[in-house]
């Protein structure tokens, strides 16, 4: 049986941050971004207490059916160490925020024929591979994958903005 290669994946750069941030605000920013962009979101959450603070592992898996043939998947993995609550005074008002160290990894996957319509027989799989590797090869790599990568970088910038990073900017927005 001929194998159907219907997925293209790419890892987008890692964000490493240490300092003060708003944990709840970050969570909502990521979740709301997925919703705003039309993604269905699945979350997993792990929490562990240590003597230095909490250890949190939060994963968002978003998927969106763009057309009958294309599906976008974006995964956002947030790992936080030494997470503690702190109180700061901003513009004369006391505010409860958080402090900690984190790594955020973003990756995206372009899924073609996600309904497996071309997976019915060896002939249809061969037709799919012909489309995937010959007829639409360039369109898939440059246009479709390029659009998904650009979309993932939008989330990348959104996260940086929420963390108040100095490099929270994108010329493409």
């Amino acid at each position: 049986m001929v194998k159907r290669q219907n997925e293209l994946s790419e890892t987008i750069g890692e964000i490493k941050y240490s300092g003060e941030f708003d944990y709840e605000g970050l969570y909502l920013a990521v979740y709301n971004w997925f919703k705003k962009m039309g993604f269905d979101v699945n979350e997993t959450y792990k929490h562990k207490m240590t003597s230095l603070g909490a250890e949190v592992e939060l994963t968002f898996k978003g998927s969106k059916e763009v057309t009958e043939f294309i599906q976008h998947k974006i995964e956002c993995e947030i790992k936080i160490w030494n997470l503690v609550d702190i109180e700061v005074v901003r513009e004369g008002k006391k505010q409860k925020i958080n402090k900690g160290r984190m790594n955020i990894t973003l990756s995206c996957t372009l899924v073609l024929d996600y309904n497996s319509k071309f997976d019915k027989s060896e002939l249809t799989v061969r037709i799919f591979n012909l489309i995937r590797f010959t007829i639409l090869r360039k369109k898939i790599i440059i246009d479709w994958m390029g659009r998904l990568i650009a979309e993932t970088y939008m989330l990348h910038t959104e996260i940086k903005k929420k963390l108040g990073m100095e490099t929270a900017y994108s010329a493409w927005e």
Partner: protein
Amino acid sequence: MSEKQLVVGGLTISYEGLFNPSDLYKIIDDWQKKHNYDKTEKESIEYVRPEGKYIELRMEPCRKESDYVKFIIKIHIVMENLKERVVEIEGQKEKMYEGKITINFEGWIETDYEEAWYTKPGIFFLRVLIDKYIYKIYTEKFAAGLRAEVNELSTQVKSFLNLYKYQ
């Protein structure tokens, strides 16, 4: 397998003093868009430390020049001991940082990035011969183009940092 050739290396800019990291990032990002490079940010680090902020960036914007040649610019930025300062520029108060910055630029040419010539040993050998004796003229032309672009970007960054010296 694709092949990578270093065209520009050892181009480093160091600066110590007042500057705005956000504006610097904006200049590099805008430049990439203007020159049709695809944004690739491998790593983006920001740590708030007692001695000041630490920012590190690894960018690898790339652009496909043809079906065979791709330009890659590797930019590594390290900003250390950044301390917040409020300065007055033309009567307006502005938040800036004082610290040390080192930027390293490298220009790479990647050939056969689609690995079209990698299917069979014979074809691969033929590719090596073509690359070495026939395509060489084109590769040199591409290398000159990339060299000019990396120099343009580094000059733009240098000019941006020099501006702060006179404020």
